[in-house]
Each structure stands twice: as structure tokens, then as C-alpha cells.
């Protein structure tokens, strides 16, 4: 309860600070650079969720613990949500700065493949009727997809000539405004907190659903 209240307050502070405290970065039209505070954490969560889902899948296959499958499924669903958010916000930014919503920039290519993998994962889950089998297949697919993804880094064309602004807005580079850096890190923290909270909620829902079905057939 108290954690939720703190998270809400923190998130609100970050949103206000993103628009009022931090200054718009140089070299971007208008206020567009403020997307940094929302888009980047979303993309970070999408990737983190994908990683968590894969690790939980490995754990499930090793231990056959239902809880691990709940984590894998919940992380995948939330990852998909944040992936869509990152795609949409990124696309709006692309329109504002590069002139088109979609131009198959390397970043756009990789996020689309991530979306496709998530989509395939859900399609697989919904198509296998047997519960136990569904979990094993989903876990195996998740691991397989994770093994195939790194190849994209090498093959996606023009990876070095992406229009995606990272050198100008990289938090690690000394060029970043300290105010921007503060809000950005705060936002990263807020989004991660939000994700963890949502993840735990989703796992609890799945656990309760699992109980109900099991009790019915007892």
C-alpha cells in the first residue's frame, strides 16, 4: 500500500519534472527531446521483460515450478505492452524529427521483431490445449527466440548509420545536461518500479486463476 503510494507520487513528480524542470535538448525540433524520459524507459522495460521471461523459462524447464511459468508469462505480457508503447512513442518522435512514422530504421526493425516474437509466443500459448505442454513449449520457444535474436545485431543493415539519437542523448556521455540526467534516471527508476509492481500483480492473478481451475477439477 505504502509502496504503491510512493510509486504514484514518484511517477507524478517525474512527469512534472520531465516537462517543467528538465530543459529541452539542443538540436531537436521544439520540445521533442522530452520523449527521452518516457520512450527510453519503456524500451528498457520491454527488453528487461524479454530477458526475465527467458530466464524464468529456463528455470521452468529445469525445475518444472509453476511459479516460474507464471513469471515468464507475466513478464512476456507486460513486455509486449511496453514494447507497443515504445514503438508508438518512437514512431511519433520519428514523424516529428525524421519526417515519417516508419522508415525501417535499425531500431524500428529490431523492435518489430521483438513484437513479432512476443506475438508468436502468445499465439503458441493459446494454441496448445494441454496446460503442462503449453508451458514447456512456450518456455522452449522463448529460449529459442532469445538465441536467434543476437544474429539481428549483425545483419540488420546500416546498423551504424541509424538515425536513432543515442550519441547526443546518451546518459553515459558527458554531453548530457545534469538536469536531464537526473530526471532520466528518476524516470528509469519509476518505470522499473511500475513494471515490478505490475509484474507482481499479474503473477498473483495467474496464481489465483491457477488455484481456481485446479480446485474445480479436484
Amino acid at each position: 500500500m505504502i509502496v504503491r503510494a510512493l510509486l504514484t507520487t514518484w511517477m507524478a513528480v517525474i512527469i512534472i519534472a520531465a516537462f517543467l524542470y528538465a530543459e529541452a535538448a539542443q538540436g531537436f525540433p521544439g520540445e521533442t527531446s522530452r520523449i527521452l524520459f518516457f520512450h527510453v524507459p519503456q524500451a528498457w522495460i520491454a527488453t528487461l521483460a524479454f530477458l526475465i521471461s527467458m530466464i524464468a523459462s529456463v528455470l521452468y524447464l529445469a525445475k518444472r515450478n509453476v511459479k516460474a511459468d507464471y513469471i515468464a508469462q507475466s513478464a512476456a505480457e507486460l513486455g509486449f505492452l511496453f514494447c507497443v508503447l515504445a514503438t508508438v512513442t518512437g514512431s511519433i518522435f520519428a514523424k516529428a524529427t525524421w519526417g515519417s512514422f516508419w522508415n525501417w530504421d535499425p531500431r524500428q526493425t529490431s523492435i518489430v521483431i521483438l513484437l513479432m516474437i512476443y506475438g508468436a509466443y502468445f499465439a503458441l500459448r493459446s494454441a496448445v490445449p494441454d496446460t503442462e505442454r503449453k508451458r514447456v513449449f512456450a518456455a522452449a520457444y522463448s529460449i529459442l527466440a532469445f538465441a536467434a535474436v543476437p544474429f539481428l545485431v549483425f545483419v540488420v543493415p546500416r546498423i551504424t548509420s541509424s538515425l536513432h539519437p543515442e550519441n547526443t542523448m546518451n546518459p553515459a556521455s558527458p554531453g548530457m545536461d545534469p538536469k536531464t540526467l537526473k530526471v532520466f534516471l528518476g524516470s528509469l527508476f519509476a518505470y522499473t518500479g511500475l513494471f515490478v509492481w505490475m509484474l507482481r500483480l499479474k503473477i498473483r492473478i495467474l496464481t489465483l486463476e491457477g488455484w481456481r481451475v485446479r480446485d474445480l477439477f479436484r
Partner: protein
Amino acid sequence: MHQTKNGRQTTQTRPSTYLNEAVAIWLRDLRSEFRTRYALNAILMFAVTTLIAVSFSIGSFRIEEAERPFLYAVLLWIILTFSALSGLARSFVKEEEAGTMDILKLSARPQAVFLGKLLFNLTLLGAVELIIVPSFILLMAYQINFPGFFIAMIISGGIGLAAGTTIIAAMISRASARGALFSALSFPLLLPLMITAIKGCERAAVGIGTAGWPEVKMAVAYVIVMVIMSLFLFPLVWEE
């Protein structure tokens, strides 16, 4: 044949290895495929139909000469990938439909089943490539400057297609809506390979040099990763 103490005859069995189990499954699948030709016909008809559609609507001279190496590579790999997606699931689906899955589980080790099915899919895809690729080159007047590199790319890309999809075929044979699901699950895994193969075929046609054979190496690396991952994961999927 051996005589045992009580006079009964038993057959001497050789210890079976992964390899001869895999080969046995491969030969059995080939024999049953040769009788029905179901999978080969399905894939080949799909491939030929697409090839004719492409050739008819584009022809050999519609595309500018400078654009040809890239666009032809794209068209060729779209035909090959989607033909593979249309039929490679057959290798496991037929076991499920014929009810022979359980017998197969008893008679061979999972890794051997995987290797046998992979060999079968490779044979199938090889046969399709043998027909489609020369026809494509003839119909589209495809100029290739490095035939050796081109052939290596077609072969390694074909192996990649089979390596990436065989375990998916095992999964979807137990699911509903198999055909659509097979493509949906396989495509994200095949995309890196497809992009590599397209770049490789473009390189073979455009004549910018093939030093180091980067795309072929990439496809081989993809095959190795996918086969090793599949060998780890397949027993879990198979025994479920």
C-alpha cells in the same frame, strides 16, 4: 541368429547409436514420402505457383538492371522461405495424424528423432531448391557473377531454414491451427537468416567481391546455434 541354451533363436542386435537411429528415421520418412509425395508436392506446388506469379507479373526485364541483384535476391528468398514454411511442418504433423508419435518415442532417442527429421527436411528442401533456383535463374535472367558463392549461399541458407524450423514443427504438431501457427512461430526466428541470405545472393550477383564469404559464415553460425539449441530443447518438447 544365435542359439540360446533352451534352443530358442534370438536375433543379435547391434547397439544402436544416435547416428544410425537418425538415419533409420530419415530413410523411413523418405520411403513414406516417396509413396505419397505429399510434402514434396505441397512445397513444390507452392514454390512453383509463387515463382510463376513473380515471373509473370515482373518478367525478366521489368526491373532496372542496377536494381536487379538486390530485388531478385529478395524475391528468390521470399519464394524459398515461404515454400519451406508451407510444408516443413509436415514431418511432425504426419506423425501426429497417423498416430505414430508414441511408437516413434519408444523406438528412438529424442535427439536421434530430431536429427532424422532434420535430415528429412533438408532432403525435402534440397529437392525444392534444386528445381526452384535454376528455374528462377532461367525465368528471371538472373546474372550471377560468383556461382560458387551463390551455390554456397543457397545451400547454407537452405540448411538454416530447416535448422530453424524443425523444432517448431515438433511443437506445432501438438497445437491447433497448425499451418498459420508454424509460419507465425518460425518467421521471427528465420528473419536474421533471411536477411543474411538476401545480402549474400545480392553480393554473388553484383560482383563487389566475395572475400571471406561473410554471409555464408553467418548462415553456418546460425545453423550451428539453432541445431545445438534444438538438441537441448527437443527432448523436453518431444517427451511432453
